[in-house]
């Protein structure tokens, strides 16, 4: 056990005090057991998309429902079912099929720009690897928009 520093520093000049600080032993860090796992986790971390793919689940789910309806109810089509839904509930169809895909497209495009900016000019293959989820979200949003505007 080391003596505590507080003892005889009364009247001590800065030079002596400096020497005591330099000579004082400090806690050393042993080999850290959590180091390897944390290193791998950080090196594998990726910037997450601003808008996740899950946000698309609502309009995609509704479109799938309407597709099922057009399959199992003869005489109806996807487009006619969508028109019917729009007549019944104008605002929700606009929110699901128009506003949400546009928001998703804008945010994912911004997210891609952010990743590109952070990474400098990464090689195309790595860049595409990092943004595939954004591209998928944008593509699905465009499909939803096209189906809605038919």
């Amino acid at each position, binding site marked *: *056990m*080391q*003596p*505590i*520093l*507080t003892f005889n*520093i*009364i009247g*001590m000049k*800065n030079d002596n*005090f*400096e020497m005591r*600080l*330099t000579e*004082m*032993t*400090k*806690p*050393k*860090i*042993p*080999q*850290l*057991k*959590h*180091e*390897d*796992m*944390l*290193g*791998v*986790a*950080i*090196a*594998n*971390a990726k*910037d997450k998309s601003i808008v996740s793919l899950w946000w698309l689940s609502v309009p995609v789910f509704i479109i799938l429902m309407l597709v099922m309806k057009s399959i199992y109810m003869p005489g109806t089509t996807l487009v006619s079912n969508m028109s019917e839904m729009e007549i019944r509930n104008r605002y929700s169809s606009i929110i699901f099929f128009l506003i949400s895909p546009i928001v998703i497209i804008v945010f994912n495009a911004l997210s891609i720009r952010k990743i590109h900016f*952070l*990474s*400098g000019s*990464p*090689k195309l293959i*790595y860049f595409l690897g990092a943004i595939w989820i954004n591209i998928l979200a944008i593509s699905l949003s465009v499909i939803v928009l096209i189906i809605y505007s038919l």
Partner: protein
Amino acid sequence: MDETGLLDRIKQKPGHFSELFKLYYKQIFGYIFRRTGNFDDTADIAADTFMKAFRHIHNFKYTGISVKVWLYRIATNEINLYFRHKHKHNSIFELISTEDKNIFNDHIAEDKREIESELERHEQFLSVLKELKTLPVKYQEVIALKYFEGKDNKEIVEILKINEGTLKSLISRGLEKLRKKCNQF
């Protein structure tokens, strides 16, 4: 160690960041721990430091400072945030996949036990750190880097981005204040 080569490899494949992590994690962890004296905060601040470094490593360009100095700079900023706002850091546990969490938990618990018992063996250091933490951050930074980490003036000037005259005056005033604080015991 050729830092330029390693940086090029990281730019081509971010997974190589783990090599840089392995090189400096223990050192940076030690610096943060000797500033905070708290294992949990140190683990969070160190993880945040390396996350930040990972996100910005592609923007790192050689302008006369090494990656090590750059990491010390990030760590110093993160520690200052911690002291200024008692800023809530992201838990490092969020980075670990669910299936590995139990093993990681065990490793963290073992490291905590070992490091806390090491700290208890240094009462002198603990009492100085306790007083140092009551000083303004600008004095804490220079005193910790010089006397706890053993950095020379050139390195401290690079880490803190201050000139040597300012550093000398901060050290002198900081020492005086710390000496007075220690005198009060």
